[in-house]
């Protein structure tokens, strides 16, 4: 292995600040997240590539765009906003975002899915990884937990803390998702932001073929959400979506916000782009090297 290849596979120590910034800075953060996803998955030898790569831009905006308030050195800070990864299998992108925020050493990303790791295949709260608010992995539950958190913040503690959750689009087939959605608008949780990673892919194929959940936007609207569709690979457009949410909360509209992020599974790596076959597998060593080369040029 030549030196350049070896370096590309190694984790670096770069971290990113969390502040209102420009598209270029968010792109750079997303690119680093993508490379860390590849680096951790190739070491793990199993895991999900497609969803994590596809949602890297959304995670970059969420963690590095000044939307979510947190302290990387103290992820138990009582005033923090919280993020719940309802689509637990997308853990690699959350882990990469947290590491790039400085919540834990990036080198730890290399322990993904390994024996005794804090980076469990699906997030485990018992591992006490800073920034992991809850266990998740059984689809349709995280969003409900997030609703409970938003209720605690808004209705019990009367604080302005925000709760974000991300579900997949295949996850919308779980009926409990809609129980959660119903309650978010019933309780007027304008501090609740639901991101739907709409890449149209699930393990068995395209959404309409496996079980049609469309029209997603109409459903969200019908369930009482202020619903905004964004290009999930355009930082400015993603930030526009978050601004809708922040405005709802600031104005006390009583409306929860749904951001439908149109994404491509595996985005950023051409041979994975928009291919549902990449939902649940990691790159081989050679594929990882090729992916990292491609991402380095982005």
């Amino acid at each position, binding site marked *: 292995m030549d030196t350049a290849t070896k370096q590309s596979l190694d984790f670096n120590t770069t971290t990113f600040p969390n502040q209102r910034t420009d598209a270029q800075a968010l792109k750079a953060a997303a690119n680093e997240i993508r490379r860390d996803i590849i680096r951790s998955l190739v070491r793990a030898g199993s895991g999900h590539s497609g969803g994590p790569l596809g949602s890297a831009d959304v995670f970059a905006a969420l963690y590095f765009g000044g939307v979510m308030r947190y302290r990387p050195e103290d992820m138990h800070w009582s005033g923090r906003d919280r993020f*719940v990864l309802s689509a637990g299998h997308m853990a690699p992108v959350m882990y990469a975002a947290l590491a790039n925020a400085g919540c834990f050493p990036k080198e730890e990303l290399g322990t993904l899915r390994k024996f005794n790791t804090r980076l469990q295949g699906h997030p*485990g*709260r*018992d591992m006490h990884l800073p920034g992991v*608010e*809850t*266990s*998740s*992995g*059984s689809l*349709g*539950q995280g969003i*409900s*937990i*997030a*609703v*409970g*958190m*938003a*209720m*605690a*913040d808004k*209705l*019990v*503690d009367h604080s302005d803390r925000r709760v974000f959750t991300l579900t997949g689009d295949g996850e919308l087939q779980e*009926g*409990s998702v809609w*129980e*959660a959605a*119903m*309650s978010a608008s019933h*309780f007027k949780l304008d501090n609740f932001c639901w991101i739907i990673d709409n890449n149209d892919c699930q393990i068995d194929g395209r959404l309409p073929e496996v079980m049609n959940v469309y029209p997603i936007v109409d459903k969200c609207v019908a369930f009482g959400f202020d619903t905004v569709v964004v290009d999930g690979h355009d930082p400015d457009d993603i930030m526009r979506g978050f601004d809708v949410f922040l405005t709802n909360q600031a104005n006390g509209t009583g409306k929860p916000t749904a951001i439908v992020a149109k994404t491509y599974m595996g985005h950023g790596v051409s041979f994975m782009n928009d291919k549902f076959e990449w939902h649940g597998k990691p790159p081989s060593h050679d594929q990882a090297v090729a992916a990292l080369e491609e991402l380095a040029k982005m």
Partner: protein
Amino acid sequence: MAHELLGQKPTRFGFGEGLVTLGERHSNVIVLGGDITGSVLTSMFKEKFPDRFFSIGIAEQNATTIAAGLALSGKIPFFASYGAFCALRNADQLRISVAYNEANVKIGGGHAGISVGPDGATHQVLEEVAFLRTLPNMTMLVPADFEEARKATIAMGEMHGPAYIRFGRSPVPMFTTESSPFEIGKAQVLTDGTDVALIACGAMVWESLLAAQELAKKGIHARVINSPSIKPFDFATVTQAARDCGAIVTAEEHQVHGGLGGAVAECTAKNAPVPIEFVGVKDSFGGSGEPEELMVKFGLTWREIYASALVAMDRRDRGSSGVRAIKDVPQAQ
């Protein structure tokens, strides 16, 4: 008998009263309603603390996971419904979001057992003890009467960690008092014999006391043990009973598979193997009828406990699993 019948009251009322006490003591106790608040008595809390009561509607999976979110925010959420819906319909939520998360969620499961009566099999949950006691981190309580249900509710609210309490719809005999001991993880020896141990939970504890009374007439001294804490389980008291008596009968208003009987069998198989007879519902669903009719039909009275005691002792005395026909069981009226 040392244990006097103090009247009849459903255990669900003990749950309702316990919740109100918790609400008075702790400002972070929150209650979630699942539409049947009057039936499971969360209505008592709702009336007293409307600001800390949230109606979730008929959505038990959502209520369970919302409770997990509240617990992860420092609250002590209680969610109550019928056990069929808040222990089994939401089983995955209990497993992942509550137990694996070690979230401080408390579940009240009403309408347990066939004594639900006319509602029939769909609403008579008979399997949830088996499920809940296999969940890591979970505490599982089955109080015997009104007063014990009240104490158990308060105790589960004041411990940290996921906990479930099972209670019933119909009035059952009251025999414990304010001064009776109750501690999570502990069983209580109610009568101290050494001929046979009758280990029971819920309404079957009273039936065991009645069986012991009848057995005493034959000179058989039964050790009646009330085991409201299915998990954590009182291994010491049960092991001691096995060693002292050499024969055990378990009694519960639940499937004979996997419930209290299962816990006793696991405990004694390891520590002190002795013959055990299991009184409970024998691998069948319930049905409609009046509670008393159903308890007789499904073999959940002191008579079955009495007969099983004779069988267990016989197996012990013969040193084999051979069963002699028992002819002298008092017949139902």
